[in-house]
């Protein structure tokens, strides 16, 4: 199921090794879907030339004050592209 724009999402805290596209500073953080970019072949598999599964890619917007408690301007935002398998579907 594709998440709608505006959905609140939490990024998984897993730490797999290798070519991964979710930066560590966003793991465990909560953001909001800014736009749905559609399915892309999973680059975390493409990097190893193994068959890549199409996965939905989202742009997720985070508040700077949430990522960094000492942020100079907490209302500033950070947008990143997050693959669906990095979104914790069990999070409230």
């Amino acid at each position, binding site marked *: 199921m594709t998440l709608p724009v505006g959905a609140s999402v939490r990024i998984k805290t897993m730490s797999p090794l290798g070519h991964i596209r979710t930066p560590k500073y966003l793991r465990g953080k909560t953001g909001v879907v800014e736009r749905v970019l559609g399915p892309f072949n999973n680059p975390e598999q493409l990097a190893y030339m193994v068959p890549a599964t199409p996965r939905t890619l989202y742009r997720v917007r985070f508040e700077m004050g949430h990522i960094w408690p000492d942020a100079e301007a907490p209302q500033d935002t*950070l947008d990143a592209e997050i693959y669906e398998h990095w979104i914790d579907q069990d999070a409230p």
Partner: protein
Amino acid sequence: MPHDHHDHDHLSPSGHPYRKDNDGALSYWQTMEVAIRELMVEKGELTPAQIQAQIDAMDARSPANGAAVVARAWTDPEFKARLLANGSDAAREMGFDIGPMHLVAVENTEDTHNLIVCTLCSCYPRNLLGLPPDWYKTREYRSRAVREPRAVLREFGVDLPADVTLRVHDSTADMRYIVLPARPAGTENLDATALAKLVTRDSMIGTGLPKGA
């Protein structure tokens, strides 16, 4: 006198220190690149002319491409709407082959400023801006642009007012980003060609503003 040094062993005849030569041994990955390139040529998969043509194509791309897109958006509201809705198609419409990558244009306004970074590597809209500047690829820029972006902007000479929202875009996956800077005031009488000359590379990364802004 600046050139009246006593430690002449470390100075060139011009009086300046010698810069360390950049001619160390090839790294593991450089060696692998050379080996694969030579193998592919030997096996007839690629010709040296094809490789040179690709290098020429990479060198031919420059921020002038992106500046033309920005100037068009400043002068053609319908194009601007298309650019913001689908940057890839809008770039292609102007004749810029952006390959398989997907382009997202983000607009600076009176109350919003955008900044582009790639924390995981060095993703950059090369098709529109050419090769990235060296600083864009440094760990310092890549980490500080998300950790303390307003401080980074001040070092670039952009002091954002507190009531302007800064949106940092980390190109973590398949998108590439270009900032559509705000059109400088007082440029109402300029055409797209003249406007394009105001659009700097840094203004399209978000670390700068257009000339005259």
